[in-house]
């Protein structure tokens, strides 16, 4: 959200009030509030508790990955492979949940023979982190640009997912598994709770730990960071592992909600995820932004989609609107970066 405030530890100082700057820095929050007001006025169903929870639940999956993506983009990297990694790690997690049996494709098959839920989650997380570690290795050791590495990852992981599943979904999990996607704690869906807790932890890591400071330093000036003893390669590698973990966690919740995992899960998810981060004010140039902005960006996209659906606006038009907002956010990022440089 606030580009200035989310720069680590910047000072609030008494300067002449800069209305343009203020609006620009808080544009995502202002826009989110405006959207909520407009939809509330135009569509009575929008503000119902049921609908708002629904928005939060939908946002939580891509939002979780967007939190991981925030780390990557803060280092001036990008990860295009998240959608494909969601599919692959989701399938492996589901396979483990079902006990890895041959009849795993059958709905409701061998629920009792399956592995404990924790094992399924760990399997999904491990695959996500391994995928991230591999890509981080290619970025830091082979020095291939992140855009290219993760574009390769996007196809390769999707291919691996299709190969692994043989094309069909893995469905029918135990209630203990689906609870993670469908259960609630005091009316709040579990994925929303996990999204909120993860956002909080990520915020603390970024703003209050050495590693978080190093992420910002690497994004701003990797050479200067290196000269000052920051382990630039390790930091860069770790952000890809982090987004990989986020994919594993998100896919676990997603498959639990849908009671199914499939090779075509998460198609195009990278766009929503990157859009949330960028609309939330994290600069594609690295070093500026944060998790709070990403949460706002994710909510903004979720509210926009939901409101347009309630108002019966076609999904094609939704795509156009979100695309335009994304381009506007990046255009603004360019403008802000130019202003920072001058």
């Amino acid at each position, binding site marked *: 959200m606030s580009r200035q405030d989310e720069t680590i530890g910047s000072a609030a100082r008494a300067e002449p009030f800069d209305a343009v700057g203020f609006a620009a820095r808080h544009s995502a929050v202002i826009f989110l509030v405006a959207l909520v007001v407009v939809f509330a006025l135009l569509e009575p169903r929008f503000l119902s508790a049921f609908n708002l929870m629904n928005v939060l639940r939908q946002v939580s999956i891509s939002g979780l990955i967007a939190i991981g993506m925030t780390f990557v983009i803060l280092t001036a990297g990008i990860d295009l492979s998240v959608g494909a990694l969601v599919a692959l790690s989701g399938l492996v997690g589901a396979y483990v949940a079902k006990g890895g049996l041959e009849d795993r494709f059958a709905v409701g098959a061998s629920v009792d023979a399956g592995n404990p839920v924790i094992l399924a989650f760990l399997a999904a997380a491990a695959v996500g982190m391994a995928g991230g570690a591999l890509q981080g290795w290619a970025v830091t050791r082979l020095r291939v640009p992140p855009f290219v590495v993760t574009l390769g990852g996007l196809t390769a992981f999707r291919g691996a997912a299709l190969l692994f599943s043989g094309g069909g979904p893995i469905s029918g999990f135990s209630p203990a598994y689906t609870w993670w996607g469908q259960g609630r704690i005091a009316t709040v869906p579990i994925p929303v709770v996990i999204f909120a807790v993860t956002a909080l932890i990520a915020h603390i890591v970024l703003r209050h730990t050495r590693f978080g400071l190093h992420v910002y330093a690497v*994004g701003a000036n990797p050479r200067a960071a290196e000269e000052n003893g920051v382990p630039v390669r390790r930091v860069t590698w770790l952000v890809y592992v982090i987004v990989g973990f986020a994919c594993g966690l998100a896919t676990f919740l997603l498959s639990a909600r849908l009671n199914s995992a499939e090779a075509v899960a998460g198609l195009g998810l990278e766009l929503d995820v990157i859009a949330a981060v960028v609309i939330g004010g994290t600069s594609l140039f690295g070093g500026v932004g944060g998790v709070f902005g990403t949460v706002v960006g994710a909510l903004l996209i979720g509210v926009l989609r939901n409101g347009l659906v309630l108002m019966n606006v076609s999904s094609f038009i939704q795509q156009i609107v979100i695309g335009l907002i994304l381009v506007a956010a990046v255009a603004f990022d360019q403008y802000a970066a130019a202003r920072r440089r001058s």
Partner: protein
Amino acid sequence: MPVLELRGIARHFGAIQALGGVDLTLDRGEVLGLMGDNGAGKSTLVKIIAGSLQPSTGTMRLDGQEVRFARPGEARAAGIELVHQDLALCDNLPAALNVFLGREIVRRIGPFRFLDRGAMFARAEELFAELKSETRPRDLVRSMSGGQRQAVAIARTRLADPKIVLLDEPTAAISVRQVEEVLGLIRQLRSTGHAVILISHRMPDVFSVADRVAVLRRGQKVADKPIAQTSAEEVTGLITGAIEIA
């Protein structure tokens, strides 16, 4: 015994020979002025001493012990601080966090360690005051003047108590008053037994603080003599090549 002793330090970048076998010694409490034209190899030499570059050939002794630094952090741990010509700052971070970057103060809470911003901001404030700089610890480097940036880079050398301080053109971008502060700091370092290498293009700076002057020309050391035995004219001639060697 000299605190630092270089023997035959050479470094090439592909086909470019930046340094062609340089010998150099530095004593405790000594200020060496290192001069030379652009591209003479001055920055390369101090980066090698500070571990941000590795020599192609040659050896380096610190207090008589042979050392090899694979990373800047190793040289720092051995007591060598370099203020880079480009200052090596992250302009998205506040002044104080730039000072402490790589050496952050942390506070333990259970198994976790968190940045102790309060301690870092307070210490940075003291350091800036000692340097007589108006730099405010919370200001982003992005919004700071050349002199303030310089103060941030110099403040880093004050965190530990180094043996050797290397300053790569620290007075190039700052005001006359701030130049005096930097020169005062160098004198203070000498009086406390530190060794200093000052790279500068400004003849008056070198002649006012240095005990000795060395001149590099195209990667070769062409002069190394006490400041009292030379003159600005001679040094200028050595830099340009009008005087071959001294």
